[in-house]
């Protein structure tokens, strides 16, 4: 016999609108073992929580059912109420009548009927719940940050400044990310490098940060508080412990590869640092471009290196570090616009993508900051095409958020650096952000032409072979526009990094339909993920500008800190155990467990589960033919009872 209390929440009208809450409470009071059933406007409010606490005492309740929103919202809230009232927190059951009932129907009859069935199921299950004891584990103090763009840099610095040790892992040979490629930043037009490079340097100098460039995460084991992350240090062919960064090697090197940094607009050496302010200031050899690796001869770099730092035999190495939390800040790629043949990117030399333009403006860029076409001409007319591949049902439905603003920035810089006419082809101008609307107004004043219509096609001009024709429908005048220009700038969709899949697998993250990492809750846990102890920041979560990215990075750092600040952490107690009396020794559990938690005891001829390794998925319980495995909190009898309750009404 248990003593169940049922607490039905109205959630204002969120639930009460399509579920008759008092009728539901009345119904609950007729169910077996239910001692008290109440409804209340906001059960999660302080008075609501106090009511539950009070009733636990007064009615000596030993099971609590809260009929409210999703357990993913408030399970923790109510578990705390139970714990504070001296009741084991696992004796709580949440019935989700908001997200899965009241919000998905307009019909109060249907809603009420379904809520009753769900509640009945919960009562059946609740009666069979058992108190569980949480496991307490030690927490590692250190944090790993994956991705060395502005998000990763910011998060690392914040954490390191609190005294935590940070491992910053970057796959490229320098940190800095996309922000380091930019010339100016909107809307303030301050120089990107001027604000970023001091931070890059601070990372390098910081005693609490271990900078791991040219590295990739290759394996992640463990769980919140205790991750074992294996890092692959890709072979640089330069021993950085010997290299003093004199860069004599880069001067002599005859090998050439496309500069990733300059978006492939120019070549760089095979042995190179990506850009002058790169951090660290030590080169790597690009195997594919290196004359020695290609032809077996050269080794000029080796000859000029006074410190004998060149090592052609260097291999990838692996190191495993222990951390308590991880921040994933892997950033973005620009969509490849070549397949969008209507825009002629890759076909017409006059068509550029936005990052290439960033480099053209930049004094360290391929043209030394002069805006010239690939053939050296200065453009007379420039069209900037917004929303290429984004806000497009055929490609990416999402808005990339920053393109309107950087397109305005481009317009300004074009005006500053050339005498060209500048045209913006846009669907809508989106200038929501501090100082953004003002910036938009300022650019309008700068004699930039705005044509409201998405660029439809770029083709070669028939009359002037050097020029391009941009076609669009001007949706304000309703007229078809054909505009001759010299340069076309595409603002492509920002999309997740090409290696998102592997990052997702490694850290057990989910992604949305575009591949951006899913947050635990879109509003209330935007930096947490479904994997405890793993946080996300920056554009890998969704497109955003630098201020938002930095804010997220600080937030993620704070989130990580809340974990690694603790000495001990309580883990979910919902692990599996073996009832040795029923174990038939088939070892199915041992074969299937992804975590190696079950092991076969050869002496006793039964399986045993190591709870420290168990993550509570319940797979072992379902493959156990003799039902010897008890998946705590989701036991066979609990699930069957809930099913029975659900099917009764």
């Amino acid at each position, binding site marked *: 016999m248990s003593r169940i209390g049922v607490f039905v929440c109205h959630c204002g009208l969120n639930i009460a609108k399509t579920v008759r809450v008092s009728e539901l409470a009345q119904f609950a009071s007729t169910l077996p073992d239910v001692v008290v059933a109440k409804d209340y406007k906001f059960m999660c409010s302080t008075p609501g929580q106090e009511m539950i606490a009070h009733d636990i005492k007064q009615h000596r309740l030993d099971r609590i059912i809260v009929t409210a929103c999703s357990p993913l919202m408030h399970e923790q809230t109510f578990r705390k109420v139970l714990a504070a009232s001296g009741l084991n927190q696992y004796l709580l059951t949440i019935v989700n009548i*908001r997200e*899965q009932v009241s*919000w998905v129907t307009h019909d109060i009859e249907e809603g009420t009927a379904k809520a009753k069935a769900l509640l009945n199921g919960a009562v059946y299950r609740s009666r069979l719940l058992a108190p569980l004891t949480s496991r307490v584990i030690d927490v590692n103090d250190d944090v790993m940050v994956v991705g060395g763009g502005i998000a990763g840099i910011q998060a690392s610095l914040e954490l390191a400044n609190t005294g935590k040790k940070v491992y910053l892992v970057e796959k490229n040979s320098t940190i800095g990310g996309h922000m380091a490629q930019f010339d100016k930043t909107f809307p303030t037009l301050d120089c990107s490098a001027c604000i970023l490079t001091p931070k890059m340097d601070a990372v390098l100098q910081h005693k609490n940060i271990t900078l791991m460039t040219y590295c990739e995460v290759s394996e992640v084991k463990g769980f919140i508080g205790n991750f074992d992350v294996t890092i692959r240090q890709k072979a640089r062919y330069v021993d950085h412990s010997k290299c003093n960064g004199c860069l004599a090697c880069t001067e002599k090197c005859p090998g050439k590869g496309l500069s990733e940094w300059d978006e492939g607009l120019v070549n760089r050496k095979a042995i190179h640092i990506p850009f002058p302010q790169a951090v660290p200031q030590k080169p790597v050899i690009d195997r594919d471009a290196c004359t020695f690796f290609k032809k077996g001869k050269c080794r000029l770099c080796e000859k000029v290196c006074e410190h004998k730092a060149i090592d052609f035999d260097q291999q990838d190495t692996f190191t495993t570090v222990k951390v308590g939390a991880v921040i994933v800040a892997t950033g973005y790629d620009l969509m490849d616009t070549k397949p969008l043949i209507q825009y002629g990117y890759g076909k017409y030399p006059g068509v550029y993508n936005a990052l290439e333009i960033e480099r053209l403006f930049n004094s360290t860029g391929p043209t030394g900051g002069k805006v010239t076409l690939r053939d050296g001409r200065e453009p007379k007319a420039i069209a900037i095409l917004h929303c290429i591949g984004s806000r497009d049902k055929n490609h990416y439905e999402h808005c990339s958020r920053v393109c309107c603003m950087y397109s305005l920035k481009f317009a300004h810089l074009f005006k500053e650096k050339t005498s060209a006419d500048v045209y913006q082809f846009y669907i809508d101008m989106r200038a929501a952000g501090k100082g953004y609307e003002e910036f938009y107004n300022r650019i309008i004043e700068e004699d930039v032409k705005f044509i409201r219509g998405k660029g439809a096609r770029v083709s070669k001009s028939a009359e002037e072979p050097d020029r391009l024709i941009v076609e669009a429908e001007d949706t304000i005048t309703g007229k078809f526009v054909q505009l001759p220009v010299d340069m076309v700038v595409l603002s492509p969709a920002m999309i997740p990094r090409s290696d998102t899949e592997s990052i997702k697998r490694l850290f057990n993250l*989910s*992604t949305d339909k575009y591949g951006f990492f899913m947050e635990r809750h879109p509003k209330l846990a935007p930096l947490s993920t479904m994997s405890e102890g793993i946080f996300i920041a920056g554009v890998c979560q969704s497109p955003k500008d630098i201020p938002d990215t930095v804010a997220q990075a600080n937030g993620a750092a704070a989130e990580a800190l809340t974990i690694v600040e603790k000495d001990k952490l309580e883990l979910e107690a919902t692990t599996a155990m073996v009832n040795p009396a029923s174990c038939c020794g088939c070892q199915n559990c041992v074969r299937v467990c992804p975590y190696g938690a079950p092991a076969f005891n050869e002496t006793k001829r039964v399986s045993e589960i190591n709870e420290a390794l168990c993550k509570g998925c*319940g797979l072992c319980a379902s493959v156990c033919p003799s039902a010897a495995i008890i998946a705590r909190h989701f036991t*066979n009898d609990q699930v069957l009872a809930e099913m029975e309750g*659900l099917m009764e009404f």
Partner: protein
Amino acid sequence: MSFEPKILGIACNWCTYTGADLAGTTRLQYPQNLRVVRVMCSSRINPSFIFRAFQLGADGVLVGGCHPGDCHYNTGNLYARRRLAVTKKILEFSGIEPERFRVEWISASEGNRYAEVVTEFTEQVKQLGPQTKFKISR
């Protein structure tokens, strides 16, 4: 009065259950015939749960898990896929309409798809009529 089927849902916590929440958050409307049991992973589902559901009078059973490759527990749903496929073959050979049992991969971001699947499956089960073969008469 038209036949309103009772459908049992078993959804994994990380993907389908969260997707179902998302359907609610975005106020998508779908039929109320489905009652969901939350489990941590679709691999938790014992074949006997499915047989039992039909015995308890379910007119249809819908299992929802993460897309293969996206399992929160890495490989759980890959085992589930095989085990539930066999469950379905057993149901079919025993003479119950296999259309009454469906497994769908619905991610946490696919609220739309969740609503679509529930709507479509409810309609399908409605067409099949009441499930009486396994149901234990009380």
